[in-house]
Structures are given as structure tokens and as C-alpha cells.
């Protein structure tokens, strides 16, 4: 017997109605083949459940539509959280790539009188973990060809390269450029030289071997801003450094008190999806 639960989507329907039979809830009455006998038509009964189960027995190719009828299919405490990033090591970058990225973001958002910068915020870890996920492969984007050689600027992203490829190829090109020009890697350059080079990449004035300098700059720049200001659950913005810099209180989700006191400074510390360090481990 093929259990319906196995054939359901990952989000197996749970039922909110606590008076429902437990077996009914377990089997996820809300997922079934559209041509199957509908338990809904027979009310919430054992008989309805048996009919639904029978329908699933005779059709074995899988349940691929979710059917909702009679009740909203959520259950208490159901949520779809993101997996918190656990810092330590790199999953995508090699050690030398990570060193380049770390040096790069350290110049984009440096530690200074105003406080820590991107490096201290864990931005390199943030980027590394983002690259291993759907973002890194442009998994959700339209990546079918043909790819145009001459897109209009108004047509936006038209590159075949995924962020993973941009980083891998772009960093290699940057390192090749630095070795040829300065006889050492980017991370070993003096800060002033790094700044000059980054400005050249941004403007497209520096030509990297076989790689668009603007593409590399834009990738690191956008991801650095994201990593500095995104919720710390993604591995960057450590200790809510970015939020403290500007005074963003995070995910408190209730600012009725602030609306009632216009033009007054907000003084409470920020809170992230995982709370605050003072609240201890979650």
C-alpha cells in the first residue's frame, strides 16, 4: 500500500480542526488526486477517509495537486523557517577565494570610527552560504537560451553566468590580474591599492583577463550590502552590526509606540529572527 502521506508534497496538509479524527488528520485529507472520490463530499467521516484512501490505492502515479476544501489546511505552530547558518569554514569558497572576498568586502564596508565593518559582520560567510543555495545557481531565474550578445541596458540581467560562476571565474581573473600587475594576490595588497583597484573595477576602467570587471564588482558589492544588513540568521550582520549602525530595530513587528511619539529617537536595541544575544541560545 502506498501511503498517501508519502506521495504528498513536502508540506503535507495538516488540519486545523481539532475535532477531526486523528487518522483523518494524519492522512492529510486535503491532498489527493483530483479524480479521486472526495471525502469532503461525504463530510468528515471514517467513510470519507476510506474512500479517499481507496482512491489513492488505485492510482499510483503520485499526488501532484493539493486539494483544499472545507477547512483551511494549516495546523498550530506550522511555519516554514529558513535554516540558520552555522558559521565556521566555507562550503563554496576555497580558502584563497575566501581571503580575496574577505579583503574586498573589508574595503567596501571597512571597520572604522563608526564601528565594525563587513568583515567583522561575517559577510564572507554570508556570501559563501548564499552561493551554495538557490541564489548561487540562479535556480529560480529564467536561464533558458538563447543568450543575446547585445542586450539593451533596459533589458537587465542577460548573462548565462550564475553567481557561483561569477565568483569562481571573477576571483580567478582578479587574482591573475593582481599577480601580473603587483606580483601578489589581492588580499596581500595595501589598502590604498585595493581601493584604487576596486574603484577601477566599479567603473570598468580595469580590464580583467577574460572577465567583466563590472560583473565581479557588482556581485561582491550587492552581496556585501545584503550580508551587512540581512537578518543575522543568514550568517552576516553579526551581532546586528549593520542594524546598529543605522538604528534599525529589526523584527520587533510592533511600532505602535513609535508612531505615537513622532520625531523622537528610538532607544531599544534591535531584535533578529533568532532574538538577541542577551536572550541566550535559541
Amino acid at each position, binding site marked *: 500500500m502506498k501511503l498517501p502521506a508519502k506521495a504528498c508534497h513536502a508540506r503535507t496538509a495538516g488540519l486545523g480542526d481539532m475535532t477531526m479524527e486523528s487518522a483523518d488528520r494524519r492522512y492529510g485529507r486535503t491532498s489527493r488526486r483530483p479524480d479521486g472520490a472526495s471525502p469532503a463530499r461525504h463530510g468528515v467521516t471514517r467513510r470519507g477517509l476510506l474512500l479517499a484512501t481507496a482512491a489513492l490505492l488505485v492510482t499510483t502515479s503520485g499526488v501532484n495537486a493539493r486539494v483544499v476544501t472545507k477547512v483551511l489546511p494549516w495546523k498550530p505552530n506550522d511555519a516554514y523557517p529558513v535554516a540558520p547558518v552555522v558559521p565556521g569554514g566555507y562550503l563554496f569558497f576555497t580558502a584563497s577565494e575566501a581571503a580575496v572576498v574577505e579583503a574586498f568586502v573589508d574595503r567596501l564596508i571597512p571597520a572604522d570610527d563608526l564601528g565594525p565593518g563587513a568583515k567583522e559582520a561575517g559577510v564572507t560567510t554570508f556570501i559563501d552560504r548564499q552561493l551554495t543555495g538557490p541564489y548561487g545557481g540562479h535556480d529560480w531565474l*529564467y536561464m533558458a537560451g538563447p543568450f543575446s550578445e547585445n542586450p539593451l541596458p533596459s533589458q537587465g540581467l542577460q548573462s548565462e553566468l550564475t553567481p557561483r560562476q561569477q565568483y569562481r571565474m571573477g576571483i580567478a581573473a582578479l587574482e591573475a590580474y593582481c599577480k601580473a600587475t603587483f606580483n601578489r594576490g589581492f588580499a596581500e595588497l595595501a589598502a590604498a591599492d585595493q581601493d584604487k583597484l576596486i574603484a577601477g573595477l566599479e567603473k570598468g576602467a580595469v580590464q580583467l583577463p577574460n572577465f567583466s570587471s563590472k560583473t565581479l564588482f557588482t556581485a561582491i558589492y550587492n552581496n556585501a550590502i545584503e550580508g551587512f544588513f540581512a537578518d543575522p540568521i543568514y550568517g552576516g550582520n553579526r551581532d546586528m552590526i549593520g542594524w546598529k549602525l543605522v538604528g534599525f530595530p529589526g523584527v520587533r513587528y510592533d*511600532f505602535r509606540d513609535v*508612531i505615537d511619539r513622532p520625531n523622537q529617537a*528610538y532607544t531599544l536595541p534591535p531584535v533578529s529572527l533568532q532574538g538577541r544575544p542577551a536572550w541566550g541560545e535559541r
Partner: protein
Amino acid sequence: MARRLPRKDVVIVGLGWTGSILAYELARTGLDVVALERGPWRDTASDFNIGTAPDELRYAVRHDIFLRPKQETLTMRNNPSQTALPIRKWGSFLPGNGVGGAGLHWNGQTWRFLPDDFRIRSHMIERYGQGILPEGNQIQDWPVSYDELEPHYDRFEQVAGISGKAGNIKGKIQPGGNPFEGARERDYPTPPLKQGYAQSLFTKAATEMGLHPFPRPSANISMAYTNPYGCSMAPCTYCGFCEWFGCANYSKSSPQTCVLPALVREPTFEARTDCEVTKINLSGDGKTATGVTYVDASGEEWEQPGDLVLVCAFSLFNVRLLLLSGIGKPYDPASGKGVVGRNYAYQTGSGALGFFNDAKFNPFAAAGSLGVALDDYNSDNFDHGPHGFVGGASITSAHTNGRPIRYHPTPPGTPTWGSAWKKAVKDNYQRVTNVGAQGSVMSYRNNYLDLDPTYKDPLGRPLMRMTFDYQPNEQKMANWMAERCQEIVKAMGASSTKLNRLGVPWSVVPYQTTHNTGGAVMGNDPNTSVLNRYLQSWDVSNVFVMGASAFPQNAGYNPTGTVGALTYWSLEAILKYLKSPGALVSR
């Protein structure tokens, strides 16, 4: 080969605002209703749990709840001489996906269009003469008047619990409301939201300038409310995670908060999610829809027969489904003939940022439709004679959020990175506010939608091609509006300002607005419209098409209020149709 399912009375394509309202109202009469939704089911309690909902990266940057371009996108170009390329990553607009549709992630600004907007062509010619109309325009009057829609606007506002202040009740101007609005039967169901510091400066400055500011109508509601469907909402907490997010507080009107709890209890209603309708099937003579074909998540194909097909997807995808189904003649800009895809329009955005020496705007204490607006420069509320453009804009002071990945304004001339950038970001986060103009876009011969000759979706069907640019009329209007915004923000006390003109050519890269309109417009003439005045297809009388795709051109407002009103307007006609099927207007 598609497998055939048992017949239903009503097949609804897409379960957002329009689909859920129609499903509920029709299931309530005892009809067998199935809604087919290509995205997932979404519930407030689980999908927008308060412990996961306020996540800027996930929703506003990575677009977790939106339609994934991989599943469907469009190709775009600015004019017919160019080669369209796919929008690989959403930018300028951001279509929703799943149950709730765009009604889930919207800001919640819920406007009524002005009486003049519905007869803009006739009105402009009467007041200014033919010469005022821009070159290449295809502006046309709506086939329905404000007065006809008024009770339906009211019904949508009651269902959505909209918070606002009436400006005109039965012809009597109400202090504190919008004096330009059309006459309403009664006030909004809930009072306006509270406003922030910037809005108090704006109100004072605008009033002193002789303008007429008022709190904009909001679907982030100000107090607990139970709607006519028995669905309950809670007061907005100004959390600042509204547009692009689902609301964890049940404070933002959406199908989830306002309709679905009542709808799912209807015993004759059923929703199937992860089911993409690929085609509306037609009888041999092409005059009757027999149902739809859809593909489930495994790629398996099903045929769902039905007596009535209601097309309730996002405006752009309504148009594509008509094109793919062969309902209505596709529009050809060269000959000017055909109707499906004709009169695609959009929205302008312009304005001015104000930098203040000493202010704490607390931009994070916000809501998607918090804000004070004025309509002195909208529609034809001002003399267009000296300006030589058609259309107008609502001008607003608003903070919708202070989420820092996207919101960290810096003054012009600030470096883009380094310590100087960091200092500017820190110094300006609290001291910047915007006055913005959201303007109308007229319809033109060369702004249109059709099927792309090259690019396909994963099911092998052609993507839709969007050909669009801001025409000189819209550029002139939006840039004039930006100057008005700058005057106001200066009067508010800004020490310096940054003028934001309309970006041309129109680009898919920066986010602008998801107010895509037209392509399946309503009208009185079947040669220039896809739908009659009841949103019924001229060609296939058991197909009705909801949504902003029916707008003949776009007004200077967010579209959802009018989309809601049209839905109830059409519902009345559908109920009539069900008693005596056939064309409600003869060709």
C-alpha cells in the same frame, strides 16, 4: 493526452482577490466551483508566521513568495524595432504566485478612480480640444461610469475593511478627506491609520500651499474589524514588513484575511493548487468554452470541463492565457487591428527626496499604505491647458519601511562604498523622507502585449512579449510632478533635495511598480476591446476576465480598489448571465 475530470459549474483560473471573491459569491448560491491555482496554498498562520515573516532578504530581495521567472516570465523591449529578451530576474514589477496572488504581498493602497478617469478621452476633448491628446494614443473611455461602480467600490472596501477618511459623502465635502473624490454613499469602514512625523510636516506644508492633503486609503487597517463575510482582522502594528511580505498580524486585507476563511467552508468549493491552466478549451465553432486544460506539479495533464470559465490570474497572465487559447483576435500594432494585447499600460513614478538637518523620521515604523496624499495634481483636477499633457498623479508623503538592505538613502555625491559611504548611510537613515508622485499612463499604439517568437516556458508554450516605453506625454507629466514634489519637500523644511525624474527608456532593472494594466480591455466597441462592459468576452460568452487587464488605460492610482469594484460589478452580471446564458451585450 489529458484525462477528463467530472464537470463543474464554474472553473476559476487563479485564486487571488478576484478569484476568491467570485468563488465565494458563486459557491454561496450552491454552484459547484473549482479554483485552479498554479502556485502553492498559503496561510497566514504557517506561511507568514510571526517568527519567519519579517525577513527582508528572503522576501524583498530573493523573492521567495513570488512567481519564479523560471516557471514563467515575459520578454521585453522598448519598441517594436528591437528584439525582445526575457526578463530573467524580476525588477521593475514583481508578480505574485500562489493562493492570495498579488493581494497577499501588496502595499494595500485602495483607491477609487476619479469620475473623470472613466471618461477621460471625452472629458479631455470637451475641455481642451482634440489637440491635447498625445501622438499615437489609443485612449478610450471606460464602458462603465464612476456612479455605476460606486456601490461596488463600497462593497470591496467593506470586505477589505479599508481604513480612510471620506472626502465626499453624497456630494457633501468632508473636512480632512479628499475633496476631489467622487461622491460616496458612506465613509470607509475603519478610520485612517496614524501617520508619522514626515506626514505631519507634509500635511502642514501642503495645506499652507493651498493643497488638500488627506490620509490615503489603506488596507493595513487601523482597528479590529469583522467584515461582511464574517472574517476578522486585527489592527496594524506599523511593523514595516508589508509590501512584498505576507502579514502575520491579519492586519493587511488579502484573500487570506478577508475571503478564504469563509470560502473554504462552502461545501461546493474546492481549490487545487500547483495546477497551471495551460488553455481554455473551446467548442468546435470557437464560441463556447468547454472548460480548461491544466498541468499538475508532476507534469500530468488534466481536462476540467466547466460551464463557466472565470479568468482571475494576474493581469499579464490573463492576457497570455487568452492569446494561448485563441480567444479574441490578437492585436497587431502595424495594422492597428485586433484586440488581445492592445492598450497595455503601466504607471509612472517620480518625486523628490528631502534631506533634513535634524529629524527622526523612524522610517521602520511604517505600513505599506501609511501616508498622506493629495490629488490636486491628479486626473483633471488642475488646468492642463498650460502643460500640454494628459493625465496626472497622486502625490504622497509616505514611509512604507526602513528595511536596510534596500533602504539606506545617501545624498547625491556620496561615494558608493568605503568609510565615507558608511558615514553617510549612518547619518541619513533617520533624516531623509520622500515625496512621490504615482502617475497615470495612457494607452498607445506601440505599447502592447503579444506572444514572443523565440522564448518558451518550461511547458514549451511561448512567453508573452511586452513592448513598452514611457511616451513623451508621460515623461512630461511625471517630470512636472517631480518638481511639484520638490516644492513640497522644500516647504517641509528639507535642507537639500534630490529630484527623481522618470527613468527613460523604461527599464526592467529597478523596481518601479507592479501596476501592469490593459491587454484585455473592457469597452463598448468589440473592435477596440476584448471584453464588454461586464467583463464578458465579446467572442466567448461563457468566459469572463477579471483584473486590471480590463483597464483601457491606467490612472494615477494603485489599481486594486478598481479591480475589486469591477469584480463585484461583473459578479452582478454573472448572476444575471447564469439565469439566461448568452452575450450580455450584443455585438
